């Protein structure tokens, strides 16, 4: 092919005339696919404290907190609920997949940046 200087200029002019491809993100909202894995969320009503999520989590995000005992018939069973240190979450989806009760799910919220670590500790399931 012939060498020339400035073979990019036609495309440059084309790009200049049409709308920019960049989205001005914080000023415009972006669309996310259905399968998006965002911030983790738990439905406290469905959680039974089975600890499977804490076992499978590769990043040790989930720790089970003891909330005292509960009487079921004759026996006394410990009540446990998960606490999520979401700043360490790697969004692998292992807990969501393995939860036998479907209590965990991914939301589409990805704006998680914060200057305080504590705001990313999710204690939602503990308040029962």
């Amino acid at each position, binding site marked *: *092919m*012939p*060498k*020339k*200087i*400035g*073979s*990019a200029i036609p*495309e*440059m002019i084309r*790009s200049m005339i049409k709308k920019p*491809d960049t989205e001005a993100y914080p000023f415009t909202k972006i669309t*996310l*696919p259905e*399968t*998006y*894995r965002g911030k983790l969320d738990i439905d406290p009503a469905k959680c039974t404290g089975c600890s499977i999520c804490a076992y*499978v*989590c*590769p*990043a*040790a995000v989930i720790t089970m907190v003891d909330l005292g005992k509960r009487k079921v018939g004759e026996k006394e069973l410990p009540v446990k609920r998960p606490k999520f240190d979401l700043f*360490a979450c*790697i*969004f*692998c*989806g*292992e807990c969501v*997949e393995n939860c036998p009760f479907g209590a965990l799910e*991914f939301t589409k919220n990805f704006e998680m940046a914060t200057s305080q*670590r504590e705001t990313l500790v999710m204690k939602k399931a503990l308040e029962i």
Partner: protein
Amino acid sequence: MGEPGESRKEASAGLVQYSTENLVPFGPIHPALKEPEYFKLYLRGETIVDVIPRIGYVHRGLEKAAEQRRWTQNTYMFERTCGICSFAHSLAYVQAVEGLTTYEIPERALYIRLIVAELERIHSHLLWAGLLGHWAGFDTLFMWVWRDREIVLDLVEAVAGNRVHKSLATIAGVKKDIPDSMKSKIVERTKHLADRAYFYKGIVDTESTLLMRTRKVGNLKAETAQKLCAVGPLVRAAGVPRDVRADDPYAAYGDVPLDVVTRNDGDVYSLLHVRLDEIVTSANAIDYALEHMPKGPIRLKIPPTIPAGEYSTHIEAPRGELFYFVKSSGTAIPERVKARTPTLANLPTALELLKGYTMADVPVVLTAIDPCFGCMDRLSFVDLDSQKKWSWTGEQLREYGIKHYFPERNA
């Protein structure tokens, strides 16, 4: 060996003695390196006399950490070895583990693995082509290519759920299916990307300033490449048709027709051609695989333990041959996992190529191998045992810096 402070002193000493070589530190923090590594460049004028690598700045002890985690958890950890070839890493690991077992992996899962791996290859090659433009001082190419890279990233996001870490491969299967409704979208987008690859080839072939920067830079001979164990596009650009996908098919590569792209010159220009052509072949492979994908389950339920034994496997990551070795003692955690990444294999070649070229060629040649130093060092965002929590305030960091570089001031 090289602390940054020391090298600065050496550099200023070199300034006084004009006749000797001038030491220019290339990294650990440098605009051309997106990850911290350190290359000592010995220059005579502008010409490079010697290069000494010092890697390990992002070494996080991944292989040691793997010996303390369960098999499934390790999938996600090895996936995070690298952001760009994340699926390749998890695929190679999963494949090595499956080699120890006797599971029949579902056909559909193998096809999905191929499709995602090829999407990732398109992404990686586009990323590299853009960065090459940036390194050669052609930012327009960089911006355009990365604009098109968004398309493939959106596809990956739609298929896997996230843009970078797909978390798709798992032992004995994949985690998400590709629904039929998504097929037409994928085919359409990959066709568009193949067109764009042709367009960029047109620019690369005709724009004379870019040709001046890439032609006859980093000439790699086939014998040298083989002797120094170069892998991937680098060796294919030197005229050796070596591609794991064709030579030792894994996943569904045995069923999908695939051309091995080669060029003969071995310079950066040929590399650019090889990578742009591979975008087209990948797009074709994806089309074919989507059309011929069998129905069926996508994963098996498996017990947490893996039979004892040793197994090694390799796959063609976007950057070259990626090698995994696993040893199991029959428990739920591995005995040893070893990863040999393409960058480490290509580094000796790059260092050899640099000698004799000028400072201006350093970013182009060094990055022509598509280095991923995170891969090379086995970086992990997951900490050694995941409870590593420490933070420094700016003041503490400053104090540490002063203590580190000016020990006498502290005393």
